[in-house]
């Protein structure tokens, strides 16, 4: 088990986001975090990342966990000046030894960015940007990654490419994946498990058994 969540509750002022959530994530699993907009998926992620304090309950990662997190929104506009490579390198020292350079090269190759590494981030496509965000997070050598709506604004081809890479990370590098989305078909295709957050509660199961009840 890599994550154990017990009776986790969150409230903003008088509005309850969710209460008494209980679930576990297994090492090496691929889980989709599903749910309608506004049910608190991002809030739950922020709590797990330690960026928000829950109002009740607790959660525990296994002691050897190293988390990578790709947030939903970034402020990268069309005038953003850094190249894809320079953007990824923000998560590395300015003065790099050979070993660090090789790690960066490896992530860039793995994320299919080597041809466009000198393209400015501002001019990159949505899919290229998402792969750059992922490469930046992978520089930390995480054994679990959390992606928040990474495919939300991508065209179908870019979605497939990104999901293929995420699957590759899971299978080849044994990285546990928690993938926030409301794209059910995509989740059915690539994810093995699901967490369904709706109406303040959570449901867990196998993706192939998932039944939508968005209403």
């Amino acid at each position: 088990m890599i994550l154990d969540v017990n009776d986790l509750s969150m409230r903003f002022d008088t509005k309850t986001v969710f209460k008494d959530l209980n679930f576990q994530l297994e090492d090496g699993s691929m889980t989709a975090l599903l749910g309608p907009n506004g049910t608190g998926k991002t809030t739950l992620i922020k709590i797990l990342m330690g960026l928000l304090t829950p109002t009740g309950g607790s959660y525990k990662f296994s002691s050897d966990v190293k988390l990578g997190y790709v947030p939903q929104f970034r402020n990268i506009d069309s005038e953003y000046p850094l190249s894809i490579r320079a953007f990824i390198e923000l998560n590395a020292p300015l003065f790099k030894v050979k070993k660090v350079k090789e790690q960066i090269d490896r992530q860039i190759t793995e994320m299919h960015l080597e041809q466009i590494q000198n393209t400015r981030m501002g001019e990159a496509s949505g899919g290229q940007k998402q792969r750059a965000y992922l490469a930046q997070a992978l520089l930390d050598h995480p054994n679990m990654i959390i992606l928040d709506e990474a495919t939300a604004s991508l065209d179908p081809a870019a979605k497939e490419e990104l999901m293929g890479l995420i699957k590759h990370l899971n299978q080849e590098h044994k990285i546990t994946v928690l993938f926030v989305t409301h794209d059910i078909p995509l989740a059915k295709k690539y994810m093995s498990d699901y967490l369904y957050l709706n109406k303040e509660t959570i449901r867990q199961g196998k993706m192939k058994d998932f039944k939508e009840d968005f209403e």
Partner: protein
Amino acid sequence: MFQYEFMRYAFLASTFIAITCGVVGVYVVARSYAFLAHTLSEIGFAGAAFAVFIGIAPLWGMLLFTLLGAIGVGELSMHSDQKESSISAISALFIGLGVLFLAISGSNSRYATNILFGSIIGVDRQGVTQLVILSIIVLLMILLVQRSLNFDSFDHIGAAAHGIHTGFVGIVFLVAMAMSVAIGAQIVGSLLVFILLTLPSSTARYIGKTIPAMIGWSIGFALIGVWAGLYLGFITNWPVTFFIAAIEVVIYLVAYMVHVIKHR
């Protein structure tokens, strides 16, 4: 022109000012602090006027006011929804204070002109030493936090997601920026110091694709501006500040137009 001592001092001081403002400017623009830089210049003017009023060197009054101003305005603009209005209100208050301090200290308008628009003959040996030391302090501060500062300035959300103490980095940077304003104002004047803090680095964004490249270009453009400005000021007897402003604007516009044409 180097036979004149004041020109030697002015060149030396300007070189350090250009390097400091060139480096700090890259982050000013990346963090969208251009308006804040402008406000700090005006706060610096009030500080210099205050220094004249109580009888100390203008540099120290400026430093005191810009440091207090940076922390105050920084806090306010981070926690206020009405960022621009609150900064405008503060800048109005400080310009008013500056005018008041100058009036009640009974100094002449020549002095006000020097503070607002800069003066190259105002820098003596002691002044140069102070500017060089302060510049080095600013550069060291930036160097010490560079990794977090780079991450936070160019990818604030990513930096926060990586658990970087963005608040701490922000404060260190505001202090460095406040010092740069006080330093830069000694040559180009408090009204125009924001030029050196925003234009060379804005130009550099069109050319550099990495942070070191942008810093290099930014320093280069700042140096071209101050050196050429001092030279042209010396031979024409027109204000140096005019030349620096004109040169930086021309370089920026050329880079901008090339960028627009390339991306059409």
